[in-house]
């Protein structure tokens, strides 16, 4: 028996502690496996079949993938849309959230009120928010008309404009969450560093760029990864905001990979194809995350590793 447990630790005591640790995470792990891990594996398996939900699945081999990469122009359009959305949303989100966090880290009257207000969109239902924002972006009588010139543009139908409302809603909804993470990171920047810098005569900008940002880099890294993953999963906004006119946008102009897989699965009942798309999406996000983790050595500064 102890032979099997040897990998858990060198001494019986270490092994006991390890066992306790495993036992305590078991409920969560089990839940994750049953409700997440197994369905995910089944979905990946389903990508090799063809299934319309009514008749039993039919073996298809790699045909779904062939179709996706070589025959379906919508896949590349959706990938392009997803990347475009990510390139717009992620930097904007991080910059705005950092700005707000820095502002709300100072001693301000009503600071807690402001923090709450910025966090409220995070806990709002995406669906409800999307419905309201759809009406804001209506060309003739939406609130967007307050800004002169913006009121006439067809935000939700023009293929070149339709990603903008979606990006706006995504950013609006997410700033509060990133702000909280940044606030935690900011508060962990040791005060001594700032005080030392002040003594040496550094101004605010130098302190921000040379002390705050580097010390904040672990948080920035976390926010970056979470944001990229979240943008790749954007769905509610697209579904609600384009449903009144053309679902997925004219010519697939608002279709991201997630939306494309929804349409394939739940609108056209091509569950095998949808599973293939979801596997592709998973691998893409995984690849991007791995690249980001590898790159972190270059720019993320962990205080505990300092020499």
């Amino acid at each position, binding site marked *: 028996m102890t032979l099997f447990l040897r990998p858990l630790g060198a001494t019986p005591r270490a092994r006991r502690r390890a066992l306790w640790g495993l036992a305590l995470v078991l409920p969560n792990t089990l839940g994750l496996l049953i409700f997440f891990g197994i369905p995910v594996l089944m979905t990946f398996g389903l990508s090799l079949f063809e299934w319309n*939900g*009514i*008749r039993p699945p039919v073996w298809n081999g790699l045909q779904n993938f062939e179709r996706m990469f070589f025959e379906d122009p919508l896949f590349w359009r959706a990938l392009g849309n997803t990347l475009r959305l990510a390139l717009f949303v992620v930097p904007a989100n991080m910059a705005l959230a950092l700005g707000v966090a820095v502002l709300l880290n100072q001693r301000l009257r009503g600071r807690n009120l402001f923090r709450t207000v910025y966090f409220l969109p995070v806990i709002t239902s995406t669906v409800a928010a999307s419905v309201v924002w759809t*009406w804001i972006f*209506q060309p*003739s009588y939406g609130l967007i008309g307050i800004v002169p010139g913006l009121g006439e543009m067809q935000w939700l139908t023009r293929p070149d404009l339709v990603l903008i409302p979606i990006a706006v809603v995504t950013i609006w909804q997410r700033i509060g969450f990133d702000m909280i993470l940044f606030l935690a990171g900011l508060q962990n920047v040791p005060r001594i560093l700032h005080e030392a810098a002040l003594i040496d005569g550094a101004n605010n900008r130098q302190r921000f760029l040379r002390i705050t940002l580097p010390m904040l880099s672990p948080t920035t890294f976390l926010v970056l990864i979470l944001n990229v993953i979240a943008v790749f999963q954007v769905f509610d906004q697209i579904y609600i905001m384009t449903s009144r*006119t053309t*679902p997925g946008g004219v010519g697939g102009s608002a279709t991201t990979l997630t939306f494309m897989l929804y349409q394939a699965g*739940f609108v056209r*009942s091509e569950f095998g194809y949808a599973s293939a798309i979801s596997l592709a999406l998973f691998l893409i996000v995984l690849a991007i995350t791995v690249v980001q983790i590898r790159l972190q050595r270059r720019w993320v500064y962990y205080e505990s590793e300092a020499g």
Partner: protein
Amino acid sequence: MRKHMILAAAAVSALFGVVAVSAQDAAIEPVACAEPGQLTMWVWDENWATVIGEAINEWTTEYCPGAEVDLQVQPWNQYWDLLRTNIAGGDMPDVFNMSQDRFFFYNSNGALLDLQPYLDEAGIDTTVWGSGSVDPYRSPETNDLYAVPVNWDTIAIFYNKDMFDAAGLDYPTSDWTWDDFAAAAAALTTDDVYGAAVYSEYQAGYPNWIAATGTEPVVDAARTTCTLTEPGSIEALNFLKGLLDQGYMPTISDLGGASADDSFNAWLAGRVAMVSGGSWKLPAALEQADFGWDVVQLPRNPETNRTRSIVHSVGYVASASTDAPDLAANLIIFLGSDAGQRYFAEAGGVAPANPSQQQTWIDSFGDSDVNIQAFVDALQDSQGVTPFDEIWNTMNTELVVNIFDLGQSVEEATAAACDFINSQLPS
């Protein structure tokens, strides 16, 4: 008024091929159920849910005591997506509403219960409903009927009489032409009001105008080619686009959405003077319109002199995988029977499919002076529903958005749409 009603009755009976409309002719009698149980039922129309709920009450009292039906309204926008999701999850409703263009997908995959044995057992001759109502619900191989029709509906123009009065125009009559329509739309357009909104969606929108040129809208009946690039389609779409370009019709962005309901709601709100609507919108108009209004047939194409409307029947179907097939079939037969359909007839909304209830339906409008003759007359030269599931998005919204919102030319938009549609048709 009385003569008007008798004419309407005669026209309707012509549809059903019976010589005189009387209570004894073509009676559809329900039968008692063998064993009560529980059913889930889905519908997409809230008004219908009320009417069907009352019918179900009678069923559980008289014909199937102890049975329970969980009647759920799934909004039209999400109805078909939800149905697909539930099928894949193995959780189909036992009884639900079906439309003619979607029927093929469900039936070809064996998802629906064959109702023919139950209808034969109950002694119901399925030809009693008109061929336009039930033939699209038959299996192509066996000719068995898989659905019992709920209603028939056609399209007409709902117009705001107050606005016509203010503009000094005579009310339209059933022999008015496209040119008369354009003139009226021009005269009715003011700073706050658009003259018309008549292009949205397949059933209530542009295909009716295409059909009036003599072309089958979107795809031919045999479903082999896309007809959007034919001269008749181009003519109709260009006519409608012309009205939009001159400012007499709102764009989709103005309406807030590409659904026919968005156009209709704009009419109810007094922002549009004329709208094309189905007979299923009558309850909404009767309840919510706070201005004088009436209906008139769609205008005639100047060359062909035809006025045509899409005709459709919604059906009740049962899931093939239901636990209680006998019970589901029994409920469906009741809902299609004289007793069950009487509720629809008396509600004064959509016309029931049951031939013996037509007089009741016509009488239910006795007090109001709505010209329902327009809907009945539209049955004469009507166009059956032909498109199919896979192209729904393209021809129902994308084509419309391209032409009537993004300003694409009709030739370009229809060519692109036909490319896609032809790629989806079985080769």
